[in-house]
C-alpha cells in the first residue's frame, strides 16, 4: 500500500511518459493539422490539470474503495494510431447485441473503423459520425458542447482524456426529430500490450423534443489488456427523450474507466443504464445535472463481478431546477473474491423545490469472500422535497428459496429464479424491447455460468 501511494503521487516530471506522449500529439498536429485549432488548448489544459491532480489515491473520498495504483503503475502507451492489422470484417455480426438493427460505429482500440461501421438511412439533419471526422465538417456545432458538460475538475482520468483523446462518436439529433433505431457505438479492444491506453471521447446531443437511443458497448479480445479511458458527454435538451445504455464486457485483464457527464433540460425524459460484466477493474463515474424544470431521469445499473474483478459506480445527481424526478437503481451480484463499490450522491440545490429523488443499491453476495462498499448520500438544500435512499447487502434469501420449494420448485431452479429476478429488476427498466431482450439473454447466460447456482449453494 505504501509503495502504491508513492507511485500515485508522482508529479508529471519532464521525463514523464505522459509528457513524452503529449509531445507526439503536438508533433502530429504540426505535421498534419486535422484537428481544429481550438482543440489543442483544450488538450493542454487537460494535461496541465492531470499533472496537477495525478492519479487518485485511496485518501481521496471519491476513491476510498477503489485502488487505481495498478493503472498508475502501467507504462503509459496511448494508442495514437490505428493498429496495422484490421480485425476481420465479419466481426461485428458475431458480437453481443448484433441482433440490433440501426446505425453502428465501430472503434478498434480507440480508432474509428469505417469498414466495420454502417450508417443506414438516417433522418434528415441527424449526424452519426466519428468525432475526428465530424470536427472537420461540424466544428462549430461540436465546439458549442465539447468539454462544456465536463464539470468535474477533480477527475484526473477525465483530464487525461481531454489531453489524449483520439476519436469517439458524434451523435446529433436535431430538434423534433425521432431516431427510432438505436445507434450503436461498439468498441473493441485488441491490444495485448501492457499499458496500451485507449482514450475515447463521445459527444451525444439530443436537441429539443427529439428522441434517440444510444448504446455504447465495450468488448475485447479475450486477453486484451487495454486501459480504456472514455468520457461521454450527453445532452438531452428540453422535451428530449433519450435512452443511453452502456454495456461493458471487456477482458479480465482490462482496465476500464468511464465517465458520463450529462446535462438534462426542461421536461426531458432520460434513461441511463450501465451493465458491467467485464474488466479487471472498472469505474463508471456518472455526473448528471438536472438543469430544466419538470424532467424525469432514471439511472439504472447492474454489475456482475466475479473472480478478482472490481466494479465501481460513482454517481452525483445534481438537482438544479424544481419539480424534477431522479431515480437510481443499482443491483450487484458478486461472486468469488469480487468487489463492488457504489457511491451515490443526490445533491438538491436551494432552488430545486419539489424534487423527487430516490436511490437504491442492492447487493447479492454469492460467496463469503465477495465484498461491497456502498455509500448512498443525500445533500439537501431545499425544504420541500421527497428524497429517499437505501442500500442492502446480503446472501440469497433462504426464506424465499423455501417458499418456492414448498410450491414444488426445485432448489436449483429456485436459486436461478431469485438470481434472475434480482437482475431482472434492472433489465426490465430498459425501454427498447430488442435491447432489453438481448441484455436479458446475455445476463442470463452469464449467471448460468456461475457454479454457485448450479451447485445449489
Amino acid at each position, binding site marked *: 500500500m505504501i509503495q502504491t501511494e508513492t507511485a500515485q503521487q508522482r508529479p508529471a516530471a519532464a521525463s514523464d511518459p505522459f509528457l513524452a506522449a503529449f509531445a507526439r500529439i503536438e508533433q502530429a498536429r504540426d505535421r498534419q493539422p486535422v484537428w481544429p485549432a481550438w482543440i489543442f488548448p483544450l488538450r493542454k489544459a487537460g494535461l496541465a490539470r492531470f499533472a496537477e491532480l495525478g492519479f487518485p489515491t485511496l485518501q481521496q473520498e471519491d476513491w476510498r474503495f477503489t485502488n487505481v495504483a495498478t493503472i498508475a503503475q502501467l507504462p503509459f502507451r496511448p494508442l495514437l494510431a490505428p493498429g496495422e492489422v484490421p480485425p476481420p470484417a465479419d466481426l461485428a455480426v458475431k458480437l453481443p447485441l448484433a441482433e440490433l438493427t440501426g446505425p453502428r460505429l465501430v472503434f478498434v482500440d480507440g480508432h474509428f473503423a469505417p469498414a466495420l461501421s454502417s450508417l443506414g438511412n438516417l433522418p434528415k439533419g441527424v449526424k452519426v459520425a466519428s468525432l475526428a471526422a465530424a470536427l472537420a465538417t461540424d466544428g462549430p456545432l461540436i465546439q458549442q458542447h465539447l468539454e462544456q458538460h465536463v464539470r468535474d475538475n477533480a477527475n484526473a482520468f477525465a483530464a487525461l482524456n481531454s489531453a489524449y483523446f483520439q476519436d469517439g462518436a458524434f451523435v446529433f439529433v436535431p430538434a423534433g426529430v425521432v431516431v427510432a433505431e438505436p445507434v450503436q457505438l461498439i468498441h473493441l479492444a485488441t491490444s495485448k500490450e501492457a499499458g496500451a491506453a485507449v482514450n475515447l471521447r463521445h459527444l451525444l446531443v439530443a436537441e429539443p423534443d427529439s428522441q434517440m437511443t444510444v448504446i455504447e458497448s465495450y468488448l475485447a479480445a479475450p486477453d486484451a489488456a487495454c486501459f480504456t479511458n472514455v468520457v461521454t458527454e450527453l445532452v438531452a435538451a428540453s422535451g428530449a427523450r433519450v435512452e443511453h445504455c452502456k454495456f461493458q464486457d471487456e477482458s479480465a485483464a482490462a482496465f476500464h474507466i468511464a465517465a458520463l457527464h450529462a446535462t438534462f433540460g426542461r421536461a426531458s425524459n432520460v434513461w441511463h443504464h450501465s451493465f458491467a460484466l467485464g474488466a479487471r477493474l472498472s469505474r463508471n463515474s456518472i455526473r448528471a445535472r438536472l438543469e430544466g424544470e419538470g424532467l424525469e431521469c432514471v439511472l439504472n445499473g447492474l454489475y456482475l463481478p466475479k473472480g478478482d474483478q472490481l466494479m465501481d459506480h460513482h454517481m452525483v445527481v445534481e438537482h438544479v431546477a424544481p419539480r424534477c424526478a431522479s431515480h437510481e437503481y443499482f443491483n450487484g451480484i458478486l461472486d468469488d473474491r469480487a468487489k463492488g463499490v457504489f457511491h451515490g450522491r443526490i445533491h438538491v440545490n436551494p432552488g430545486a423545490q419539489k424534487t423527487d429523488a430516490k436511490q437504491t443499491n442492492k447487493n447479492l453476495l454469492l460467496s463469503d469472500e465477495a465484498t461491497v462498499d456502498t455509500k448512498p448520500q443525500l445533500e439537501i438544500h431545499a425544504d420541500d422535497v421527497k428524497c429517499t435512499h437505501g442500500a442492502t447487502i446480503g446472501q440469497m434469501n433462504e426464506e424465499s428459496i423455501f417458499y418456492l420449494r*414448498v410450491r414444488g420448485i426445485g432448489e436449483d431452479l429456485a436459486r436461478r429464479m431469485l438470481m434472475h429476478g434480482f437482475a431482472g429488476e434492472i433489465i426490465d427498466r430498459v425501454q427498447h424491447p430488442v435491447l432489453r431482450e438481448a441484455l436479458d439473454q446475455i445476463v442470463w447466460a452469464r449467471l448460468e455460468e456461475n457454479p454457485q447456482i448450479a451447485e445449489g449453494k
Partner: protein
Amino acid sequence: MSLLEIKNLHAGVEGREIIKGLSLTINPGEVHAVMGPNGSGKSTLAAVLAGREGYIITQGSVFYKGADLLDLDPEERAREGLFLAFQYPVEISGVNTTYFLKAALNEVRKHRGQPEVDAIEFLELIKDKIQLLELREDLLKRSVNEGFSGGEKKRAEILQMAVLEPTLAVLDETDSGLDIDALRIVANGVNRLRHPGHSQLVITHYQRLLNYIVPDFVHVLSDGRIVKSGRKELALELESKGYDWLIKGHPGQLQPA
C-alpha cells in the same frame, strides 16, 4: 388407507423440543382443525410437515399416502400434493407472480405425468380463480407478494392453492391479520376446494375462522401434544371456556378422544 398419519412425533428446533409426542390421522376428504395457544407447537407442526430446514425430528413418524413424508424434500412433498399456506407469505422481488405460479403448476403436472401448460392456457385456467378470491388481475404481473396488502397476501396463498389443487392443504394461521370481509373471501375460496379427494389441516389460534371453514374434527394442541380431540362443537366450547379449561384442569392426563 389414511392420507396422513402422524405417530408419536417429537420435533424441535435449535436444540429445543417443541412437539412432544403428537399423533394425528387425517383421512381423504376430511377437514381437521388444530387449535392451541401461542407456543403450543402449531407453527412447528406446519414447518415439519412442509419440510422446513433446521427442524429436527427426534422420534416418531409421519406417513403421507402410505410413504415416509420425512424422507422427501419440500419440493417433492409439494409435487405429491401437499400444500402449505404460509402464515407470513414471503415477498420475492423481481420474480413475476404468473411466471412463478406457472412454473409451480408445471412442476406438479410433470410429476403427475400431465402435459405442461403454456402461458395462454395458464391465464385461462387462473381467470375464474382470481375472481373467486376477489383479487385484481394486475397482481399477476407483479413480483410475488411484493407490495400486496396483508389481506391480498393471504388471498394470494389460497389462489395458489386453487391453482395447484393439492391433496392435503395445511393452512397455517391463515386467519391472522384478516378483517371479517377478507376472512369470508379466504374461507369461501378454501371451501370451494373441498371435495372427497381433498383434505385440509387448518391451524389456528382462534375459533373465529372455524365459523367459516367448518371442520370435521377439532384437536387442541398444548405443549406439543394433542390434549383433546372432538367434533366441531369442541371449538365452540373452547371459545366460551378458553384454553385454560383444558390445559390447567387436566395437566398431562388427557388423551386423544
